[in-house]
């Protein structure tokens, strides 16, 4: 894949390479009555053109909040971005005023939501909703927009697009609705597409079709794709790199194949071991003990220490930094090398 491609970004400084999207030490907190919930604590990643980054994590790990913060559509209050930077081709989006920032949404960075039924407006036909992108952002006439909408619906492989353009969201099946959502988000040919659990609400065969569609669209348009998911299986075929999140932090970063073969963080290891496997049929399924911590009371030391089978005293006292274990692999664990070698 195109992970090593460079490109002439217009805003790139003389030094040359500014990544397409660069998230640096992002911090997000929710100020609620029960206290401050630190949903994202220093998440960093970067994304290049044509690259797919998977952000993996269980519910409440902060992956969706990260996406909303990058998009700048966090409900505020209660959510606040308290630190870090989100740079699109070198331009820090967080420092822009809202109306300038809005210009990036849809055109440069777009998002696909998890549940397309609730993400589509129930009172308008789907064609009208997709067409809104062209009418509002490009000032197209209704007639021209309609032609483009049919093209786009065909592009996301909706059968009989011409006849179905005036149907309402509830008249489509789950997979078709997600295709419509995807059509809307790619309408303006964005450079970055964030897909927040795009297949979670769908059944397995449809999941595969949607992932395939996303992959093809990404290749064809050289988009950077951020795939947010809790499903290790979904990631394997599509992603180039993976970041594993836990309690608002990135625990491990790696190229996709390596992480499956040899995890370097006990949490990733636990996740991989908890996937049901055909060759272990009949045996007890191993699960990670305990529950994710409440974000208002993150334990001191390593966030994962109360659930970690290898936790030592140091894990309860000192928070491990995300360090490079072997070239290209990062792990936030005091015993990363040992986990990687399988020696503990």
């Amino acid at each position: 894949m195109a992970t090593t491609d460079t490109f002439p970004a217009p805003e790139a400084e003389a030094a040359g390479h500014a990544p397409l999207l660069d998230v640096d030490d992002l911090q997000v907190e929710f100020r609620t009555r029960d206290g401050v919930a630190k949903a994202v604590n220093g998440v960093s990643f970067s994304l290049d053109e044509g690259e797919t980054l998977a952000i993996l994590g269980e519910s409440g790990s902060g992956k969706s909040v990260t996406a909303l913060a990058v998009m700048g559509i966090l409900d505020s209050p209660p959510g606040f971005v308290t630190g870090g930077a989100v740079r699109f081709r070198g331009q820090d989006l967080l420092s822009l005023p809202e109306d300038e920032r809005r210009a990036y949404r849809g055109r440069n960075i777009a998002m696909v939501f998890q549940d397309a039924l609730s993400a589509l407006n129930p009172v308008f036909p789907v064609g009208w909703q997709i067409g809104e992108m062209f009418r509002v952002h490009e000032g197209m006439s209704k007639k021209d927009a309609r032609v483009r909408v049919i093209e786009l619906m065909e592009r996301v492989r909706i059968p009989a697009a011409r006849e179905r353009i005036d149907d309402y969201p509830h008249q489509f099946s789950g997979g078709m609705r997600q295709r419509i959502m995807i059509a809307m988000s790619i309408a303006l040919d964005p450079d970055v597409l964030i897909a927040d659990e795009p297949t979670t609400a769908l059944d397995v065969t449809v999941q595969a079709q949607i992932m395939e569609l996303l992959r093809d669209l990404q290749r064809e348009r050289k988009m950077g794709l951020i795939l947010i998911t809790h499903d290790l299986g979904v990631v394997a075929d599509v992603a180039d790199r993976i970041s594993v999140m836990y309690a608002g932090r990135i625990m491990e970063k790696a190229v996709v194949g390596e992480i499956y073969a040899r995890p370097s963080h006990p949490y990733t290891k636990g996740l991989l071991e908890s996937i049901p496997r055909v060759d272990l049929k009949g045996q007890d399924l191993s699960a990670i003990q305990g529950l994710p911590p409440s974000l208002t009371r993150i334990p001191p030391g390593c966030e994962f220490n109360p659930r970690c089978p290898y936790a030592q005293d140091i894990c309860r006292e000192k928070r491990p930094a995300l360090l490079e274990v072997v070239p290209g692999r990062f792990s936030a664990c005091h015993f990363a090398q040992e986990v990687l070698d399988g020696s503990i």
Partner: protein
Amino acid sequence: MTDPSALYPPAAAGADERIHPDSETALEAGTEGPPGAPQQADKPRSLTSDAWHDLRRNPIFIVSAVIIVVLVVMAAFPGVFTNKDPRFCDLNLSRQAPSADAWFGYDVQGCDVYARTIYGARASILVGLFTTIAVTIVGGLIGMIAGFYGGWIDSVLSRILEIFFGIPLLLGGVLVLASFPSNPGTPQLVTIGKVVIALTILAWTSLARIMRSTVIQVKHADYVSAARALGGGAPRILRSHVLPNAVAPVIVYATIVLGIFIGVEATLSFLGIGLQPPVISWGVAINDASTYIRQSPHMLLFPGALLTITVLAFIMLGDAVRDAFDPRLR
């Protein structure tokens, strides 16, 4: 751009996933819909068309709609119903009981009660209609702004709303209208306008509350976030995503209060401060009749009955519309 069809023949591309549009509606018809009511195949059905489909089969809606249509025709073209002049009065006929000549009898001035009741519909319906429109616009707008923007804007608007909410509609109406009295020389439309303004000032609060709460519900919907994620600005999102999804309960409530406004107008006119002669209205007629209830009950009976029927028709219509628009009641 590569041609997608080259990679994926459209026939194979998820064709099995497509559900036929009327498979869902057919299911509905089988489980919930009235038996023997054929669903229109292949026709997209929005909330509105669904509601209309239900309404057409609801006897309460049909009855109330027919009454309202008759009333509206009465208000617009009173000449259709009577050829008598409501302003031609003969004191010799004062308070004569109903007869073949005058079906509803004569009032104290010797005017034909039937003609005056027919002509009275116009003022009553105009007041009801204009007040409802004004209240919907004012209340809807304030409620929408408060609900959508939240924060201090919501706090300020909500406190203002509560102040107005505390004033009883009738008492407030009496106060406002007594401060700006009309006299027989005031043009009809000005008199009607005063009543409309007085009622609007006092009655916008309920509508604003309904609008605010539904907007708060709708603004957290995923499709609003999605619209923001795809670059929609606040006015755009309000207009094409929040408003269409939040307006149904407001329409329903507006239909119900229309009847109530007609009743309040009659009450104010009865008290002598709403519409006043020479305006012909049911409230004025009831006021005239009140002194002679024992001697000539027909003077009260007919305008009173028509007023009751009108208010009832609008409230019934509102109920039917609410049932049709509220999916939870199905």
